[in-house]
């Protein structure tokens, strides 16, 4: 009896797992389909993540343990139910107030609620849309952003409604006249594909005076159905249908666009049939049939190695893993100060190296996917600078073996990962480049060099911090202080090499592209600011204007020049090549610069007093 019970439990468990597996595989196949959006081909998985980021400010719904692709799947299959789910996250109290929506603690609202809210102020919204962005208030900006996201969300949700079998023609005469099955669920696509004469027929029939009442009402229902559904024709964002000739410039089409063509090729008909079959089976919970249809669709649209790579990139989430290793390394390093020094610091280095490996491989995958160098936008620059700082820290650690390099690497690597994740929340981090920036040669030389300069300057800056802390903590330990001072000079020189080379290469790119080596553009000036600051520090040291303490303070302040060059110039929104404007940059930048300035000031005064006091004490001892 026990054995049978055991077998039953085993069978039940297996069947549950098997069912889940099929759903999972179906979801995976759906996520691996290709879609063309924002000028590039990407997996549906990425499309779903980006949409969910815009809607929910996260790439998964933790509340329901729902991955982005499953969420998208639910959205396109069951739009009406999805509108009632509280998937939208709105944190701006003023925006909710403007829409007369009661704010909630979890900040989560359904599309339906928000739609009603927007309806109430539609006239205002329409008027705000005519205002130039720079003249819009913050509330207007946020509300219009939400309005656009809602619009896009709605459009995506209607992408596959043409396959929804929600009409039954009970009138057999009408059905037969149209060549359709009576008393059988039909979709807009099935009606459309069964007869392309429907519009002509409609006009003809309506003209006839002897048209029977029941027929009239059947016609009327059909006409209303077609007219209502026809509004969804504008849902063209989910461009799943590949063109026959696949070139980088070819436009992919949405199912609605393909269906709207005058003449469909057999390939296009077959693709739409696959989607119809998938839609029907998926709604009918026939997972196997759904999977078969989806696979057939995927095979016909063709395989793309870059899409596979991007899927892997999404799933592996290497940057989160590398962050984990950096944090473990930092923890181990701290533990090494308490005991088991050798073992713990060795483990810290290993963890750091693992983190750096994953970090680097993540960037390599991005390069393969986009077929361009590692840095082409602000997000990538953050990730790359973090990696450079980790490598520099690792090298210093391997030479010095006293934990300082490890500390720098883990601190900057982790910090920049957090900053990067924040930027990744804005949406697709693999956007296309405008014409003038679309040059792999210059992206690989100038941009990489200057961002390496940022990273190395950041490490030098951190050495400045460490010197000040050490000078306050142990002002008498001159050997250690001198060592940190020397190291920071060395790292500053390397930083100077890269920032100078990067700045000059930028000038040469400008000369090649715009005809002038130097145009005093904010981005150019920002890069020059770092070079001048480092030069000033090195010459000030030679001229005897300051010694180790002053030099270290200067290095702390060098971080401000890096932040201004990197993020600050974007706030000006002028010039030829700033990456883009993010409002939150201003606040974060001010906080960072304020903190660094305060740290430098307090650090200098405190350390100076400690050194003075120590000298006085030693003089007293001598006396």
């Amino acid at each position, binding site marked *: 009896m026990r054995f049978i019970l055991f077998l039953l439990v085993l069978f039940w468990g297996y069947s549950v797992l098997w069912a889940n597996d099929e759903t999972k595989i179906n979801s995976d196949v759906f996520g691996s389909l290709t879609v063309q959006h924002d000028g590039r081909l990407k997996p549906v998985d990425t499309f779903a993540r980006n949409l969910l980021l815009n809607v929910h400010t996260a790439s998964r719904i933790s509340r329901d343990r729902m991955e982005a692709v499953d969420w998208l799947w639910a959205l396109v299959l069951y739009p009406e139910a999805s509108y009632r789910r509280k998937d939208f996250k709105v944190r701006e109290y003023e925006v909710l107030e403007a829409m007369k929506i009661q704010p909630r603690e979890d900040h989560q609202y359904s599309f339906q609620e928000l739609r009603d809210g927007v309806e109430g102020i539609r006239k205002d919204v329409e008027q705000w849309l005519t205002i130039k962005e720079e003249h819009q208030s913050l509330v207007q900006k946020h509300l219009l952003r939400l309005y656009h996201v809602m619009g896009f969300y709605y459009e995506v949700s209607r992408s596959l409604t043409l396959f929804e079998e929600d009409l039954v023609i009970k009138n057999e005469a009408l059905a037969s006249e149209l060549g359709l099955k009576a008393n059988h669920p039909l979709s807009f696509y099935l009606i459309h594909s069964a007869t392309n004469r429907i519009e002509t027929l409609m006009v003809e029939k309506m003209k006839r005076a002897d048209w029977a009442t029941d027929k009239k009402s059947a016609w009327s229902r059909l006409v209303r159905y077609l007219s209502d559904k026809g509004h969804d024709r504008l849902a063209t964002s989910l461009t799943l249908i590949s063109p026959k000739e696949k070139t980088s410039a070819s436009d992919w089409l949405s199912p609605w666009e393909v269906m709207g063509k005058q003449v469909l090729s057999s390939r296009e008909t077959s693709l739409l049939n696959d989607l119809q079959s998938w839609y029907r089976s998926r709604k009918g919970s026939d997972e196997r049939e759904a999977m078969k249809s989806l696979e057939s669709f995927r095979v016909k649209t063709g395989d793309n190695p870059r899409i596979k790579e991007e899927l892997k990139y999404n799933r592996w989430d290497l940057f989160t893993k590398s962050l984990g290793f950096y944090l473990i390394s930092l923890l181990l390093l701290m533990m090494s100060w308490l005991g088991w020094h050798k073992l713990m610091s060795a483990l810290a280095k290993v963890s750091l190296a693992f983190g750096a490996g994953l970090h680097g491989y993540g960037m390599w995958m991005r390069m393969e996917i986009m077929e361009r160098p590692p840095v082409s936008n602000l997000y990538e620059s953050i990730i790359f600078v973090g990696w450079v700082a980790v490598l520099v820290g690792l090298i210093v650690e391997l030479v010095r073996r006293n934990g300082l390099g490890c500390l720098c690497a883990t601190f900057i690597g982790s910090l920049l990962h957090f900053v990067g994740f924040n930027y990744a929340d804005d949406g697709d981090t693999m956007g296309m480049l405008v014409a003038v920036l679309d040059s792999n040669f210059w992206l690989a030389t100038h941009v990489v060099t200057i961002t390496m300069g940022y990273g190395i300057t950041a490490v030098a800056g951190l050495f400045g911090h460490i010197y000040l802390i050490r000078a306050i903590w142990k002002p008498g330990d001159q050997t250690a202080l001198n060592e940190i001072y*020397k190291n920071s000079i060395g790292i500053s020189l390397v930083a100077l090499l890269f920032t100078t080379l990067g700045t000059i290469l930028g000038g040469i790119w400008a000369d090649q592209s715009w005809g002038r080596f130097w145009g*005093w553009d904010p981005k150019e000036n920002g890069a020059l600011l770092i070079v001048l600051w480092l030069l000033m520090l090195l010459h000030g040291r030679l*001229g005897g204007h300051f010694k180790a303490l002053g030099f270290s303070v200067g290095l702390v302040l060098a971080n401000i020049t890096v932040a201004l060059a990197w993020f600050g110039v974007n706030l000006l929104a002028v010039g030829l090549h700033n990456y883009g404007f993010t409002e939150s940059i201003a606040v974060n930048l001010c906080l960072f610069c304020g903190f660094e300035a305060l740290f430098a000031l307090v650090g200098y005064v405190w350390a100076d007093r400690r050194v003075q006091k120590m000298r006085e004490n030693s003089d007293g001892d001598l006396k």
Partner: protein
Amino acid sequence: MTELKTWVRRLSSPSIIYYSLFWLMILLFWGTVAQKDLGLYQAQETFFSSWVLWLGDVVPTPGGRLTMLVITLNLTMKLFFASRLHWKGWGILITHFGAWLLMLGGLLTAYFSSEGNLVVVEGGRSNLVEDYHLNEIAFIDTRPVLENQVISFSGKYLRKGAELRHPELPFEVEVLDVMVNTTPVKKIGVVSEEERGMARRFDLAKLPRDPQSERNRGGVRLRISGLGDQDGVYALFSGMGVPQIFNVEGGEIEIGIRRRTSPLPFEVKLIDFERQVHPGTRMPKSFKSEVLILREGTKTQATISMNKPLRINEYTLFQSSFSEDGIRETSIFAVVENHGRIFPYISSIIICLGIGLHLVLQLPSLIRRVG
């Protein structure tokens, strides 16, 4: 001799470059932030291309050009008179030489380069380059003998009180007012007896300078004398729909204010302009112009695209912009004449070699493990 040595030591002191760099950084930061309100060109003129920067029009401080001159002089003294020829200092020496060359190239570019726009309609041809920022008053002589000869005045002539005279001009011109940015507004009230042409019906209202230089519409008020009935005060602005024409003996002279224009020694004919966008978006992917260069009876076909300019002797033509009016496309090229353009290329190599060598020589001792 000792005194000379003392001066060399003083002039090559790292303190000079230390303070100059500090001041240059202030200018750089200030000039960059000011671009938000002043625009790139005006900020550049005020902070970086100036000898003196006036604080509140009262206190003179060194402008960008003066600061860079001090840096160059300090660098020259250090490089040629105060460098130690020890092998450990070779990296620094080479770096300083590269920086000195870079400054020299900057000097050449500042004084001997020019840039502007060449606008060509598809199917059309042109050799006229318009300055981005500066205006000129142009007199176009349409008398048959002179065949549309253009006499133009710019620079120091384009200021209040300037007198414009030329042997070929049969009248005298006095500049009464110059406006960087203006718009015509319908005249209200009494019309002065002196006012002629457009000035009888419209006043030129001064507008603040637009940060985007190309949006500024220059304006000028002139007094013309020596033409009898036609003597009087005239108002002109860039892009006037109806040109101001004077009848002179044997024909007409047209007068206008426009962007300073200079001819190229060759003509550019635009065969085709092509713009590509990223699929499914309106984001530009590439711009490309097929052109024909017409020079002294020869024709050369060439392509100018983004990041791939066309170089003809000392001129370089870049794909800068475009416009469409629904019928024809117009390509806008940036034309640059720069005799110092090779300097940054050479100096950057030298600077990087120098810093690299210095690092090789110094880094091991700076990073090595102690104890």
